């Protein structure tokens, strides 16, 4: 079915390091306070902080270590996702 799609401007993101599960986040902002780079700024009460400076993340994972409800997932940029294989799949000579 044909549909008229709406457009908008947005900032193109080279990477999005942090993902919050809103159903688990209690909005305590302990992650924000643990981050030494201060990549987050306060969000609305009861909600996750805003990841205002995602490109400055150095992927240490301390925000995840600090989160008591397991609400945060840290994701490396696609180019930095390391490859591994089943050893059995390597072709013997």
């Amino acid at each position, binding site marked *: 079915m044909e549909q008229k799609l709406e457009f908008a401007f947005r900032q193109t993101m*080279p*990477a999005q*390091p942090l993902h919050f599960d809103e159903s688990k986040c209690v909005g305590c902002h302990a992650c924000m*306070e*643990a*981050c*030494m*780079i*201060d*990549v987050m*700024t*306060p969000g609305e009460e009861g909600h996750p902080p805003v990841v*205002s*400076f995602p*490109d*400055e*993340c*150095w*992927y*240490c*994972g*301390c925000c*995840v*270590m*600090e989160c008591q409800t397991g609400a945060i997932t*840290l994701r*490396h*940029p696609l*180019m*930095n996702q*390391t*490859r*591994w*294989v*089943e*050893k*059995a799949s*390597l*072709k*013997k*000579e």
Partner: protein
Amino acid sequence: MTTTPWPYPSQTDRTHRLSADVVVLGGGIAGCMAAIAAARKGQSVILVDKGAVKRSGAGGSGCDHWESAATNPCSRVTPEELTQAMLDDNDGYNNAISHYIECREGWDRLLDIEEMGGKIRDDQDEFSGAAFRDEESKLLFAYDYRNRFTLRIWGTTFKPAMLNECRRLGVTIVERVMVTSLLTEGGQCGARCIGATGLHTRTGAFYVFTGKAIVMALSRPARIWLFSSAHPGLCEFRPLSCIGDGHAMGWRAGAEFTMMEKSVRAQFSSAGRSFPPYSTGNNHNTWYAATLIDATGREIPYADRDGNLLSRVEERYLPAKGQHYFLKGGSIEQAKYEFEGPETLPYEQLNAQGYRLPFYADLSTLPELERKAIWGFMVGQEGKTQVPVYQHFTRAGFDPTRHVLQCYGVGWTSAEFLPQERQLFGLPGGFMNDWNLMTNLPGLFVCGDALFASNCYGHAAATGSYAGRKAAAYAQSASLLSADEAQVCQERARVYAPLTADPQNGVSWKELNEAIAKAMQNYCGEIKRDELLQSGVELLSRYEREVVPEAYAANPHELTRLLEVFDILTVAQLILQSCLKRRETCPKLEFYRTDAPCGAPAPFIVIRNDNGVVRTRTVPLDYAGDLRDNYEKHNADYLSELEEKRRGTKA
């Protein structure tokens, strides 16, 4: 341009003034240990940190091994032997004093940290019976299992324990404040250091700290040659905010530096070129001594220093026949024959023998406890590995008994790098120090990565504690001086200028950092020549003159990043000046001139800024003198306290 309002109240109209006996700049490993040592001496202490102390600094997220703890009860190497080896291995271009402190006191600091609540022993008996475990003390060792001077540790527990200890001792902790400059007596360049200024990274409030003694515990420089505006956080191995502010403010204040002409081809991160450290297959550091296999699953042999192939995994952890001990670790890439440990065969040899890229790390054939020590323990306790690597890979289904991890490059590196992609790594330059870890500026003590030829966690902790107690001793007989108001006013004006610059014309921190990095790759790459270096000096001084005064920042966070890049610009100029002053090629400093041959071993070149004039002096490589004698002469109090404590423990 975003119109979202800044979430914190502006306090650029406020100046907070704080004083204490000892002011510690930087709350990483070295800074925390300095604050703790000074507070234990009964001094009032302020600890200033750009982030939040619990997890800040290069070691805040963790650490998996502690090198050179030569006085631990299982060690078969003395501090004197180990320090001498580090000196010999680098032809003397190393910090004999700081590394002797590391070797001599590292174990004392581990015991300290254990008392604070850090975990240093396998008290759950997870590794009972392992070749790397001492059954009595339950300590775990890495690398050389016979000589046992490097320990495996649970480093993720350390930084929170240090924070608690700082709190317990009543240290005044000031977080989210970037230190921007050193204050000197009468505001004079080269005079006694009496304090520092700071900027709150959220509110923009200004800080003036004064103390009887100041401890410099800020990081080593970074992002001098490497920058990515898309991934600035991935430019270097250490955190984005650790870029050498201390070196820059020290240079401006007239402090002496040495070995600043040394840089090495990048090894980690490199503007996103490499993969996350310790996430790829290799057999280095955390991964020592993992088995490597080639693209067809064929095992790559390990050999001893004489080229004898080692058939059993256990042999990878033992010195060669007739060898006392071997060196491996953070600052040792290719040890000299005397200290060379087991290693996989070099790529050229492997290629000739038909081994095929890519290679993989294969933990599946290691003895179970060796596999568990690497995957789960060390990859899990090392900085940046618990969540991003161990937890992540495990959730995605990685099973070390079945899967193999790709190596990028032809050995233990996680990428191939270009010669002009350089870093301050592998014992880089830094502040010059004496036996009290004091700089040439009276009252300014230095530790951790701020020191020249710094390396790892144990070095940071040991020198931090040492600098803290020396600063405390100095403070006991020094007076508290007021800040020179003209110096404070000038710094406040410098710090705030970018907030009122023209947003349309003023460059951002990213544009400036990228320009500096490109300039340094062009004019201060692997090859050095006077004309090249001089062109770099001209370009960077033009940036200083024309670009810096117009640079723009929209808020205190961005301002922090911009002030960091101003510091990077200062350090880049310090590096160029240091390169110009070294007249001969010096391979151990990875310093290669094509306009001058390799000279005879030359002394340290010590460099400082004297009100805008660059001054140098030379210092013999053996300026530390007899290590044991000098250490004991300077630390009689510490040694008697240690003896008393030992007697108390025995009783």
